[in-house]
């Protein structure tokens, strides 16, 4: 299994795509596969402050409820409203249409604590 090179990954199976001061966050294909059919997602509120490795939302598959852990700290500026009606996008396109939220980064240094694609592939092997 290989993972996109332009993203950073957390041990909790979230990814981050950084553009300027903003980071888009989602769950990895590995996480989506492990969860199975995703049927519900509780998104963070716009304006909410999230902290690195703290919970910022919930994702539910048919069988299980799992917390979402923010891979970076910041302020939520956008959430993927499409997931409210189509949470299955997190299964079908986890690195694209299935993104969860965008945050204004508060500490870019945190990105250094995340893994690159190769390291994440090794982590999940």
């Amino acid at each position: 299994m290989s993972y996109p090179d332009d993203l950073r990954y957390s041990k909790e199976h979230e990814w981050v795509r950084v553009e300027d001061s903003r980071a888009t966050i989602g769950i990895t294909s590995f996480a989506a596969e492990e969860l199975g059919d995703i049927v519900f997602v509780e998104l963070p509120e716009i304006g909410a402050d999230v902290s690195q490795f703290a919970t910022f939302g919930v994702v539910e598959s048919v069988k299980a409820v799992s917390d979402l852990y923010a891979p970076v700290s910041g302020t939520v500026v956008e959430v993927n409203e499409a997931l409210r009606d189509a949470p299955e996008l997190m299964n079908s396109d986890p690195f694209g249409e299935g993104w969860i939220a965008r945050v204004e980064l508060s500490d870019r240094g945190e990105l250094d604590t995340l893994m690159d694609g190769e390291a994440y592939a090794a982590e999940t092997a």
Partner: protein
Amino acid sequence: MSDGAGTLLRTPLHERHRELGAKLVPFAGYEMPVQYTSIIEEHRTVRTAVGLFDLSHMGEIEVRGDEAVAFLRYALVSDPGALTIGQAQYSMACQDDGGIIDDLICYRLDDDRFWVVCNASNRAAVMAQLQELLARGDFGATIDDRSERTALVAPQGPNAAALLAELTDLDLDAIGNYRSAPGVVAGVDCLVARTGYTGEDGFELFCDAKRAVAVWRAVSDAGERHGLRPCGLGARDTLRLEAGMPLYGNELTRDTNPFEVNLGRVVKLEKGEFVGRAALQAIQRAGPARKLIGLEMREHAIPRAGYPVRAEGREVGHVTSGTLSPTLGTKIAMALVPAELAGIGNAFEVVVRDRPYRAEQVKLPFYKRPRD
């Protein structure tokens, strides 16, 4: 992602599951497929075509002897003596206080021979109870735990009968719901039972564990024309929940009695002495304190086992099972609440992550299969 799976038991179909790419999880001491591709797709396959389950983890206990009837009438809450050969009945073993040890199906195979098919998680408890009662009553019967020698392969769904008809000379029309017959399926001796846990028509094929792969392969191959998919325990759980069927450990525990969970009809108080009779008679007379109800969410949150249930702002009970129903698209739950609060249309709230969400009591079952 490994969790001591080395200590888990495996069914004779374990290698097949691996080849099929199943996600295997620990369940009742076994490593079992929870899904092959998608729980939702597997669920829909059982509702519309036919799904194939490996249920070889379940317990099969043979009770045999001149006093097998008398013994089972004493040990179970139902009356197995009322069964004709080939008939089966849903039943339970209860404690002296009426608490449920397990729910099970009792199959009459002959005048003096029965099979008790119980949950894998409770097999040891059922065996212990039967052994103790056998000694206590000095019954002329023997008990044989055949679980590890017996495999169970279950094609379930509207196409199950047409599929099975291609593999056996048995007259399947003569095997009605909750009936069984011995017969040959794909060259293998089986007990063919028209029972299941999905709310659909379907069969359970009990066979020698050594022949399980042959039966599974034959049913899978013939099933291709009938839209068959292998199905895991994940789909089995959502299927039974839509059908309003209780699950041991969720709706049924040693702290619940049959009357609370709408299964009073199974208890035959008039049949004479049996384990739990006095307690169950008292509960029946007084009426159960709690009642198992169906809930449908009126807000966007999925109810799950263990979540608190409120009425008028006060916590009154808990969800025993809940899910997003793949067939209905609604968020459904079963819950235990005080009997006096139960009534179709009544308003409740389910607390999901510390926030109450509105729910309404609806009729059980949530789903009933269309019949011709």
